[in-house]
C-alpha cells in the first residue's frame, strides 16, 4: 500500500471516463475499464458506480506528455500510465499515456488497456507496487491472455488487507460481464445465470496438490519445453522455470501464464523460429506465442495426422536442425515435418529401433545444446541429436541444481 495505507472510507466508489483514446472504440474502452473494476469488486465489498458528469472519486483520462500533474508522460514506451492513491481531488485518478497504442486484445504492437487499467485502478484503490512476479500490481507490463483473467493471490491479499473480502464471498468463478447500461452499478455478487456448480480443479487451492520439492528424488514431469531461451518443466498445475539469466528456479502455475489453459499437460514443444509453443492435453492441442493463445485453438490432435486410434500423446520434441518434431505415443513415435505441416511417411516407428537405450515410454522431452533429453519416471536420458545415441542418464531434476 501507500504510506499510511490510504483507502476509500466507503464501499460505493464513483468513477468517470473523461475522454477516450482514438486507438479503440469507445464501447471497448468502457468495457475494458468496467472489466478492470470488476476484478477488484469481485474480491472486496466495493461497488463501482459510473457517473457522466461532475467529480467522481476516480477520474479516468488519456493524456500525452505534460498533462497538469507532476508526472509528465514520456512518449511511446517507458511509462504507460499512473494513478493516485485514494484521497480527495486528484486522489484516485488514473491517467493513461495517449502516446501508447492501446488495444482491446493482447498484441505485440500495443498495450492491453484492460490489463493496464486493472493495475492502475489497483493504485486508485490504495495498492502500491508488488515485487511478486506474476502479480497484477507488479510494476512492469506483461502481455497476457486476458480471457478468464484472474487476480494473483498476492493482489487479493493486498486489496483485502485494505477492504476485507466481499460481503458474500463467491466461491466460483465470476463470468466476464456484458457492458453495463449508464448508471447501472457493477454488482459484486455473481449474476444469477451462472452455470450449475462444477468443482473447478484449479480454482480452490485446497484441492490442488502441493507442489513437489525441487529435489524430490521421485519427481517426474508431465511435459517439458523450451520457451525463448528458458526451459519450463510442467507437473499438474505447476511450472518450474529455468532461465539462463537467473541462477535460481522460479515456481509458477500454468494459470499465471495462460489462465484459460487447463493444468496437466501431456506434452509440449517449441518451434523457436516461429516463436511458438504447442501444448498437448488428451486429444487436443493449443499453440501459444508468449502469453497469447493463438486463435482457433484448441484443435484435435488428428489435425496433425495422427490416426483416430491415438487419443493422447506422451511427449514431443522439436529438432531445430531438421525442422522435424518427434511425437511419442507408447513405445512408438511419429515424425512431423514443420515445414510441410504434415506427418512424415513411414511412421510410426519403434522408439527403441531409432533411439538406442530408450526402450520404454517417454513422459516428457526437450532439446537443448544439440542434445535431446527424454524423461521417463525419475530418470532422464541425454541423447545426441545427430546420431541418436544415448550419452548418459541423469536424475529427472538434475536441472534444478540438486
Amino acid at each position: 500500500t501507500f504510506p499510511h495505507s490510504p483507502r476509500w472510507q466507503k464501499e460505493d466508489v464513483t468513477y468517470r471516463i473523461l475522454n477516450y483514446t482514438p486507438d479503440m472504440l469507445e464501447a471497448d474502452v468502457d468495457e475494458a475499464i468496467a472489466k478492470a473494476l470488476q476484478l477488484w469488486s469481485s474480491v472486496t465489498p466495493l461497488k463501482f458506480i459510473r457517473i457522466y458528469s461532475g467529480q467522481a472519486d476516480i477520474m479516468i483520462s488519456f493524456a500525452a506528455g505534460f498533462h497538469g500533474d507532476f508526472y509528465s508522460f514520456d512518449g511511446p514506451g517507458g511509462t504507460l500510465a499512473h494513478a493516485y492513491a485514494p484521497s480527495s481531488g486528484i486522489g484516485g485518478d488514473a491517467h493513461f499515456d495517449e502516446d501508447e497504442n492501446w488495444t482491446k486484445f493482447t498484441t505485440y504492437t500495443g498495450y492491453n488497456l484492460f490489463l493496464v487499467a486493472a493495475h492502475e485502478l489497483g493504485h486508485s484503490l490504495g495498492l502500491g507496487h508488488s515485487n511478486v512476479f506474476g502479480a497484477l500490481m507488479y510494476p512492469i507490463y506483461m502481455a497476457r491472455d486476458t480471457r478468464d483473467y484472474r487476480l494473483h493471490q498476492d493482489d487479493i491479499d493486498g486489496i483485502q488487507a485494505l477492504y476485507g473480502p466481499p460481503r458474500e464471498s463467491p466461491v466460483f468463478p465470476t463470468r466476464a460481464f456484458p457492458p453495463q447500461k449508464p448508471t447501472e452499478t457493477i454488482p459484486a455478487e455473481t449474476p444469477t445465470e451462472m452455470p450449475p456448480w462444477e468443482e473447478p480443479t484449479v480454482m480452490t487451492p485446497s484441492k490442488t496438490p502441493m507442489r513437489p520439492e525441487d529435489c524430490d528424488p521421485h519427481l517426474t514431469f508431465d511435459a517439458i519445453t523450451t520457451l525463448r531461451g528458458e526451459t519450463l518443466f510442467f507437473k499438474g498445475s505447476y511450472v518450474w522455470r529455468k532461465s539462463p539469466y537467473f541462477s535460481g528456479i522460479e515456481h509458477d502455475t500454468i494459470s499465471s501464464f495462460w489462465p484459460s489453459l487447463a493444468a496437466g499437460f501431456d506434452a509440449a514443444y517449441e518451434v523457436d523460429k516461429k516463436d511458438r509453443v504447442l501444448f498437448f492435453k488428451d486429444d487436443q492441442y493449443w499453440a501459444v506465442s508468449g502469453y497469447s493463445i493463438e486463435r482457433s485453438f484448441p484443435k484435435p490432435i488428428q489435425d496433425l495426422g495422427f490416426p483416430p486410434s491415438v487419443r493422447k500423446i506422451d511427449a514431443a520434441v522439436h529438432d531445430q536442425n531438421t525442422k522435424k518434431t518427434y511425437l511419442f505415443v507408447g513405445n512408438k513415435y511419429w515424425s512431423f515435418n514443420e515445414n510441410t505441416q504434415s506427418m512424415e511417411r513411414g511412421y510410426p516407428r519403434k522408439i527403441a529401433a531409432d533411439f538406442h537405450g530408450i526402450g520404454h515410454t517417454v513422459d516428457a522431452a526437450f532439446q537443448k545444446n544439440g542434445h535431446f533429453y527424454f524423461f521417463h519416471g525419475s530418470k532422464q536420458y541425454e541423447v545426441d541429436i545427430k546420431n541418436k545415441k544415448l550419452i548418459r542418464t541423469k536424475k529427472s531434476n538434475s536441472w534444478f541444481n540438486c
Partner: protein
Amino acid sequence: FPVVPEKEKEDMEFAKKYLENFYDFKEEKHSLFRSKNPNHMSDKIREMQSFFGLEVTGELNHKTLDMMKQPRCGIPDIRSYS
C-alpha cells in the same frame, strides 16, 4: 559485446532518471545536504535490483538496464511516494 562509450553515458543518464522517478534517487549536485554515503546511486541500483529479484550488485549491468527499459507503470516502486 562491450557497449560503445557514448551509449554508456546515455544509459547512465537513463538509469539516473529511472531511479529518480521510481526509487527516490536525488542527484547529489542539486541537494544542499551531502549524503553521508558517496555510493548513493549504487545503493538505489541495489534497491531496484532487490525489488525485481535481480542479482544485487549495485552495478548498472546489462540485465539491470534491460529491466529498466521495460514498459511500466509511472508510480514509484518504493514508499516515499507523495
